[in-house]
């Protein structure tokens, strides 16, 4: 079974040396008391519970899977204890509102923690992230009474959260959903309908499960403007917080999936279930987006965490497995063969994963910083700017970290050769688990369209220009070796965007035709900028030397992918649109 050690050194390097988190926190009153010592201690503790409580359950969770019997879901052996460790350790309330029992720590920190938890056990931590997401949504859109009733219990993991959006015919297209909400005289609503793909919609990890359900009021407008959001608890909650009777909904079945088998994916039948409106009528999608934006970044981190668990397993295997001789002659002449990592292509695979993971870790932390600024900065202009950057960067984090996460898991599996295909080695599970992250919380195609269509083209590239300017402004620490490459990459992104803005005016299909490649180009450019800076500030020790080598690899072997992306983006949209559907 693969072992996993949280990469604390790299996390601290990103937080403190690359992004100077302490400086940011000190000038923000709400975060002024967050110190490096505190953060380091939290990371150490997070690493411990990951290693002791979460990771040991990962493989058994895959083998046993969640089970459904007679309307109730049971999780794999040990998941209850693992979730209790997350809950009782306060890990779900780290960034929560202190007025309701949260710890008010920065997002930058929770991103690092989430990476560990996902790396240790994606299936189990999904329950944690949904709980945190539900709490975030209630904290942002709920009434004071709702916050008082739910937040503390959610932060404490005493109750969990679930989000119920998808219906059989309404996946990406939420506007066509059919679940109904009928007003009741007492101000509550009766929710009726069937939702599918509801992660942790039912389980045995906690005493209550708080569903956030999208539904339509009678006479609601058509499409996404007619959707409202409701709190629908599994057990009704009295005004004192005590649990009452079972609400009128249940899991009708669970799906058999490719991966994340320990996480129950439920069909939920709501049969006149009691619900409470959250936020305004018909404003449900806006409220849900709070949760979805949170979850999108979180799913990106899932891609990163899984890929890092896979990298650690593959690195260890490459050091231990002996097979073939080095091209330069025996490296391990006492043994029957040399370790795999003497082979150039094995190194190429390991370095590819490493360069994407460490670049992704820095990128995710950057998004976390902008989230913290958007939430806590005392300066309104800075908050607005950070909000724009969060909008720009979130789809990139979700899609790129999960696309590369899957690619990296597949490469790690390749290092194992035939053993990578066998269940007992645990590495093929990473591939199966990682695959979902490219799909849920908005497929990566939807993320790319969000980035290019809504975040870049809609304002004529203004936000993108602002981000490019911020990259150029923060380039003084870029290693001189890579300054030209970084500048060239940024210039390329700028030029490609300008051309897209000009071309999109009279080509409505262009955004969709170019979006996925554009998102990759955006990410690769940001990674180049981050890798240039990381190489420039890497310390003079073994860790720093490895960092510089990985940077060299990134610039020489991965950044050239930008050329292919550029050519593909510049291609006419007719290359995908001209063909008649009959010819496909």
């Amino acid at each position, binding site marked *: 079974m693969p072992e996993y050690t949280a990469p604390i050194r790299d996390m601290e390097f990103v937080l403190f040396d690359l992004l100077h988190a302490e400086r940011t926190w000190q000038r923000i009153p709400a975060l002024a008391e967050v110190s490096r010592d505190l953060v380091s201690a939290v990371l150490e503790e997070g690493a411990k519970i990951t290693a002791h409580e979460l990771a040991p359950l990962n493989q058994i969770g895959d083998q046993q899977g969640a089970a459904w019997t007679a309307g109730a879901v049971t999780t794999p052996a040990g998941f209850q204890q693992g979730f209790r460790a997350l809950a009782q350790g306060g890990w779900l309330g780290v960034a929560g509102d202190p007025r309701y029992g949260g710890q008010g720590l920065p997002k930058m920190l929770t991103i690092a923690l989430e990476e560990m938890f996902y790396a240790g056990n994606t299936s189990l931590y999904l329950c944690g992230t949904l709980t945190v997401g539900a709490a975030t949504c209630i904290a942002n859109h709920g009434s004071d009474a709702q916050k008082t009733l739910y937040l503390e219990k959610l932060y404490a993991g005493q109750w969990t959260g679930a989000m119920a959006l998808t219906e059989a*015919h309404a996946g990406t297209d939420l506007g066509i959903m059919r679940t109904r909400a009928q007003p009741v005289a007492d101000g509550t609503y009766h929710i009726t309908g069937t939702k599918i793909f509801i992660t942790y919609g039912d389980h045995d990890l906690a005493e209550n499960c708080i569903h956030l359900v999208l539904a339509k009021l009678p006479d609601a407008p058509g499409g996404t403007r007619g959707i409202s959001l409701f709190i629908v608890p599994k057990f009704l909650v009295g005004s004192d917080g005590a649990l009452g009777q079972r609400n009128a909904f249940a899991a009708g079945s669970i799906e058999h999936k490719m991966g994340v088998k320990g996480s129950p994916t439920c069909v939920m039948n709501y049969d006149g279930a009691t619900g409470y409106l959250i936020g305004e009528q018909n404003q449900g999608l806006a409220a849900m987006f709070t949760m979805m934006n949170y979850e999108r970044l979180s799913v990106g981190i899932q891609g990163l965490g899984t890929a890092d668990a896979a990298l650690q397993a593959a*690195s260890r295997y490459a050091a231990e497995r002996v097979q073939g001789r080095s091209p330069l002659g025996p490296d391990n002449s006492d043994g029957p063969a040399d*370790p795999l990592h003497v082979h*150039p292509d094995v190194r190429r695979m390991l370095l590819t994963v490493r360069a994407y993971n460490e670049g992704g870790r820095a990128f995710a932390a950057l998004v976390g910083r902008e989230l913290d600024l958007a939430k806590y900065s005392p300066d309104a202009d800075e908050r607005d700017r950070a909000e724009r950057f969060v909008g720009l960067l979130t789809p990139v984090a979700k899609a790129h970290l999960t696309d590369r996460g899957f690619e990296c898991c597949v490469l790690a599996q*390749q290092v194992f050769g035939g053993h*990578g295909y066998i269940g007992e080695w645990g590495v093929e599970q990473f591939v*199966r688990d990682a695959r979902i992250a490219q799909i849920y919380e908005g497929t990566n195609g939807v993320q790319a369209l969000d980035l290019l269509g809504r975040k870049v083209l809609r304002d004529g590239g203004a936000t993108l220009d602002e981000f490019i300017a911020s990259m150029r402004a923060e380039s003084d620490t870029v290693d001189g070796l890579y300054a030209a490459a970084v500048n060239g990459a940024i210039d390329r992104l700028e030029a490609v965007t300008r051309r897209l803005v000009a071309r999109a005016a009279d080509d409505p299909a262009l955004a969709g035709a170019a979006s996925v490649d554009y998102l990759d180009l955006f990410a690769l450019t940001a990674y180049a900028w981050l890798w240039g800076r990381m190489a420039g500030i890497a310390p003079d020790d073994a860790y720093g030397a490895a960092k510089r080598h990985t940077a060299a690899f990134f610039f020489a072997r*991965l950044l050239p992918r930008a050329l292919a992306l550029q050519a593909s983006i510049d291609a006419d949209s007719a290359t995908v649109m001209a063909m008649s559907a009959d010819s*496909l």
Partner: protein
Amino acid sequence: MTDFRTPLRDMRFLLYNVLDFETHFARLQDRTLVTRDLLDPILDEAARFSETELLPLNAVGDVQGCRFIEGAVATPPGFKEAYATYVANGWSGMTGATAYGGAGLPHSMSLIVEESMTTANMAWTMYPDLSHSAMNALAAHGTEAQKQQHLTRLLSGEWTGTMCLTEPQAGSDVGLVRTRATPNADGSYAITGTKIFISAGDHDLVDNILHLVLARLPDAPAGTKGISLFIVPKKLPNPDGSNGARNGVVCSGLEEKMGIHGCATCVLNFEDAVGYLVGAEHAGMRCMFTMMNAARLGVGMQGVGLAEAAYQRSLAYARERLQMRSLTGPQNAEASADPIIVHPDVRRMLLTQKAFVEGGRALAYYAAQQADLAEYGPTEGREAAEAMLSFLTPIVKAFITESAFESVNHAVQIFGGAGYIEETGIEQFVRDARITLIYEGTTQIQALDLLGRKVMLTGGVALLVVVGEMHALAQTCAESLPRLGHELQRIAAEWASLSMAVGGRAQADLNELGAASVDYLMYSGYAVLTYFWVRMAHVAHQKLQVGNDAYLAGKIATAEFYVARLLPRAEAHKRAIEAGSGVLMDIESAAFDHS
């Protein structure tokens, strides 16, 4: 989700219009002449068998898998009956020599028929695939007596075959094989050792299995030069040919795998099993390579088949699934949403699949022609065909499977959340396809073979032939298809010069070979697929002069898509190759352990 049909139109387009198999078959010697009147019914019958017998067993094979019960392997329900039908239909002996009961058809025929079957059910098709590899090895290296006794049984389908190479400590590094062969007084050998990852190593489709086993004779030289090949039947034949006592080989367990659950992947323990030497002592690797080369083409074909199967399903789903409106306004105004095929990015994913599937099929069929020519073609051309086959084999094996894996993942992505659910049947293709990048030599092994042995060691002789064909075709289409012709000419010239440059650097620094190899293989794949796409577009263009046809128009549009959106990836691979080995090798081994 069984909306699937064998792509007979595309197969026939390649066979009759692009690659002119009719003329090709007429040039072969010592083989039953394949005319269109023979080929067409074979294609139709293979399609019918695949769709009606094999396709219904694909999902059940995945869900139930093989079971290991009291020391024996049970295949999923229906597998045995389908195999009996396969044998009754005469498929098993199709390409065997008539002297041993075969039908004497050329190699390419089995590849084409196996494509049909593997598209419907890859796990099931592996059983006859492995028999086929064993037949090739015996036909090439067995004695007359061995052919009479064993090859006939394989061709009749009474027995199936296996290839036993891998051991726990010996995967890519076959030279580390430890299984021992001790001579017996009667001229046979006692084989002892453990083999792992043996596909079809034990099962209940037939009563007897012929294992081809790599083992070491006493005092054999170390490494690959000390390995010999042995026939080890599961049951020792009686003098009358019937199956006798169990030999000393048992299956001790099945692997729990990511995919191909219907194919038994066995641990085989040999304990003083009776074996018979095939070929010369210590020449086992060479004998094994005979079967491995054919098997590698077969794995490439598995990539084509899986990608085809997933493409068809995702295309059908894209036409049916209603979700969101077209960016240019409703296309399906009476319904709640438009079919997702209107969305540009869904089309990008469909076209990427189509480009890889149909391009891969053309490449594989072309390689299959070379396999025919190398053995049965006009004598003076055999050496050149062999060189071409050797050159193309690693590209067929590795590039087609790599691109097929990308392809099946696009298919899953088109299904969205439904793609992740087992009952939809699409994620199985990802799990099944993943093995094709690993077995029969990983992508890495193929890449070293391509660059080291097939390009550098030969001075790129076959490469230059392909490049020459590309230039000639580019000239032919310069006016009819100017953009395609231009791109073909450009990539052909660049492929040749890049190969020279990387070869030169690798002579000087041995690490350069491994550092460049996979990117070089991928580059070569994109280059050679350009050739086949332009060839197909050229033929389609000519045929379109006499009337409209959506299929033919699609060929040209896909070629345009390919050069605009996929071929640019070659540039990224080229840059990675040119970056050299330093960025890989200068880092200390210990640095990889850091986390």
